[in-house]
C-alpha cells in the first residue's frame, strides 16, 4: 500500500468512524445511565432502538406525517414505553425477588417481546429503508468523502450528548440522578424520590435510543434484528468505563474509528471482530475502562 493510499484510508477511516461512533456513543450513554443508577445492564437497549425506529418508520412513511411530528412522537413514545416498563415491570420484579439477576432477565424478556411485536406487524419481514431527512450528497473533507447526512448525524449526536451532560451537571433533576448513582440510600434520606428518578432515567434512556434510531436508520436497512447494533454500544461502554458517562462517549468514537481503520488497513472480515478485540485489550490492561474509576471490591 503506498503512502498516498494509506493517507486516504486514514482520513476516510477517521471521518466515517466519527459518524458511526457518534451513534455508538449515544447508545453507550443510554446503557450507562441505567447501569450507573441501578446496576442493571439493559439487554433490551438494542430492541428499544429497533422498536423506536419502526415507530418512526410507521409514522413517517405509512402514516405520511410530517418529519417534525414523526420525530417528536417517536421520542415521546420511546420515553413513555421505557418509563412504563421500569414503573410496571421492573418495580414488580424487584419487589418480588430483589435479585438483580431477575431484573436483567426482565430486560432480556423485553427484548424478545419488542422483537416479536415488530415481527407480528409484518413490517419486519423484509429489510426496509428509512427515508433520510437530510440529503445524501457527498462532500469532501480533505480526501475523505462523507455525505451531508453523515455530518447531520455527527452534529445531532454531539448536540444531544452536550444537552444531556448539561442536564446531568447543571439541573436539579440531573443532580438528583447523580446522587442516586452515587448512593441511593443517602439520596433517599435527603428527599430524592428513587422511583421517580429511576423511571425518568429509563425514559431518558429510551428517548436517547430513539434519537440513535432516527440517526442510524437511514444508514442501515431496517430489520427486526437491527438492534444487534447495541453490541457496539456495550463495547463502547466497556472500553470507556461502564460507569463513566464521558467514557461512554469516548468509547463510542474509539469503537467507530477502530472498526473503520481495521476494515481499511487489515481486512473487511475483521470489522466485526475489532470491537471485541478492543474490549479484550481494555479488560486486560485497564479492567475499569479508560475513564472508569478505581476498581472497588465490595465486602459482603
Amino acid at each position: 500500500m503506498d503512502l498516498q493510499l494509506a493517507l486516504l484510508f486514514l482520513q476516510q477511516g477517521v471521518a466515517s468512524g466519527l459518524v458511526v461512533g457518534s451513534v455508538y456513543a449515544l447508545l453507550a450513554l443510554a446503557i450507562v445511565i441505567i447501569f450507573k443508577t441501578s446496576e442493571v445492564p439493559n439487554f433490551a437497549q438494542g430492541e428499544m432502538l429497533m422498536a423506536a425506529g419502526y415507530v418512526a418508520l410507521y409514522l413517517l412513511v405509512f402514516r405520511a406525517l410530517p418529519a417534525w411530528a414523526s420525530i417528536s412522537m417517536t421520542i415521546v413514545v420511546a420515553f413513555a414505553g421505557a418509563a412504563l416498563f421500569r414503573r410496571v415491570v421492573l418495580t414488580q420484579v424487584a419487589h418480588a425477588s430483589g435479585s438483580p439477576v431477575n431484573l436483567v432477565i426482565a430486560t432480556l424478556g423485553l427484548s424478545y417481546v419488542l422483537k416479536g411485536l415488530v415481527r407480528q406487524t409484518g413490517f419486519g419481514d423484509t429489510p426496509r429503508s428509512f427515508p433520510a431527512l437530510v440529503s445524501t450528497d457527498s462532500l469532501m473533507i480533505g480526501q475523505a468523502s462523507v455525505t451531508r447526512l453523515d455530518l447531520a448525524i455527527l452534529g445531532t449526536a454531539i448536540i444531544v450528548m452536550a444537552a444531556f451532560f448539561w442536564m446531568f451537571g447543571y439541573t436539579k433533576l440531573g443532580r438528583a440522578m447523580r446522587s442516586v448513582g452515587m448512593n441511593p440510600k443517602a439520596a433517599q434520606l435527603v428527599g430524592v424520590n428513587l422511583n421517580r428518578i429511576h423511571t425518568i432515567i429509563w425514559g431518558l434512556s429510551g428517548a436517547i435510543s430513539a434519537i440513535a434510531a432516527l440517526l442510524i436508520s437511514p444508514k442501515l436497512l431496517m430489520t427486526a434484528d437491527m438492534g444487534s447494533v447495541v453490541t457496539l454500544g456495550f463495547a463502547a461502554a466497556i472500553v470507556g468505563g461502564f460507569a463513566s458517562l464521558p467514557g461512554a462517549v469516548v468509547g463510542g468514537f474509539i469503537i467507530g474509528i477502530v472498526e473503520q481503520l481495521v476494515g481499511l488497513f487489515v481486512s473487511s472480515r475483521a470489522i466485526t471482530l475489532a470491537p471485541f478485540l478492543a474490549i479484550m485489550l481494555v479488560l486486560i490492561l485497564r479492567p475499569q475502562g479508560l475513564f472508569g474509576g478505581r476498581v472497588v471490591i465490595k465486602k459482603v
Partner: protein
Amino acid sequence: MSKRATGRLTALAATCIAVMSLPVAGSAQEPGLSDKTIKIGMFAPLSGPNMAYGFDVANAARMYYDKINKEGGINGRKIEVVLEDDRCNANDLVAAVKKLVEQDQVFLLNGGSCSAAVVAAKDYVVRSKIPLIMLNASGDGALYPPTDYIFGAFSISQYAVGGSIVDFAAKTFGAKKIAYINHDDAYGVWNLEGSKADAEAHKVDLQVESISPTITDVTAPFFKLRAANPDALAIVTYARPAALLIKKAYELGFTKPIILSVTGTANLSQLVENVGSKDALKNFYVQDVLADLPGGPKIKWVYDMYKEAYPDLAAKPDHPQAYMPYGIPPAMSIVNALKEAGPQPTREKVLEALKKQHFDTGVMAGPVVFGPQERAANKSTIFIKFDGTNQVLQPGVYTSRWQYKG
C-alpha cells in the same frame, strides 16, 4: 450329544435359515408405494417470515404433480402428496422429515427451500436411505461431497452463483479486474470458490472483500474495492448488504457496471426503495436463474398453470411469489425418475435414474444435469439489466466452470 441329535439340530437350523431367507409377503413393496399410488413427502416454509422462499414453490410442484395425475399418473399410479411446514427452520424441518418418513411412510422426499435448514436433515436422510430431491434450496452443504440419496440446486448451487457472475462480467464487459464482495460465511466461501474457477479461466484478477452478513457500515470494504480501480463490481451477498453497497457506490460516484447475484434479488421493487434512488441503478445488472424474464414468453405457461390451479391465490397482489417457477424442475425430475424406474419402482431404481438425468425443463436457464459425482442440477444463469423500472434480458446464458473434485 448324539450324532442323531446333532443331525436334527443341523436340519432345524437349516430350515430356520431357509425360512428366514424367504421373501416376506409384502416386503417387496417399498414404503409409500401401492398399486394405485406413490406417496411423496413434501416440506417447505408454509408459514413464518421465510414463507416467501417456498410457499409458492411447493404450490408449483404440487400443480405439476396434479397435471401428471390428470394425464393418468406414472405407470398407472397417481401421485399422493403429504405436505409439511418446515418454516425454514432446521429443527422444524428435521421433525417434518422424520414424520414423513416414519409416520407417513412416504416413498421419497421432495422439499427444502432454505439451505441451512435442509442441510440439517442430511445425516438422517442418508441413514434412512430415502431419496431426497430438494425444492429450491441450493443446499450445497448436503450435495458436496455427493451421497447416493440427496439431489438439489434445481435453482442453482452457490458455487455456480459465483462462477457464472464472473463469466458474465468477463464476457459482457471484457472485465480484467473485478471487485468482488461476498459474505464471510459458508455461502461466501462456496461462491468464491466457484468465482475463482471462472476467474482463472478468463484470466481475471479478482479483488475480494468478504463481509459479515450483519455488517452495518460498508464504507471500508467499498473504499478498498474502489481503490483497486476495477472494471466491474460483483456483489454476491444477501439483499440487505447488497442494498447498502449499491447505495454507497452511488453516494461515492461509482459508475462502473454493478452486477448483483441472484441471492440478493428476492424483491427488486424493495431494492429500488432501499437504495434510495433509481439513479443508483444506471449501470446495474441482476442475475437470474430462470429461462426468461419473470412472466416472459418462455415461461408464461408456468404462470398460466398457476393461475388455473390457484385462482384465489393468483388474485392476491403478492402472488405468485418470485420463486414460484423453481418448484417445477424438481417435480419434473422426480416424475422422470419414477417413469424411468418402470412399473415396479424401488427407491434404488429411482436413485439410479436420478444419477443419469440430463433434460431441459424449459423453466430454468440451464438443463438439469446429474452424474456419478454431480448432485447439483443447474449451473446456468441469465442476466437482466435493471434500471429501477424496466428489465431488459441480456443475450446469452452464463455458466460456472466449477467442478467438484472430491
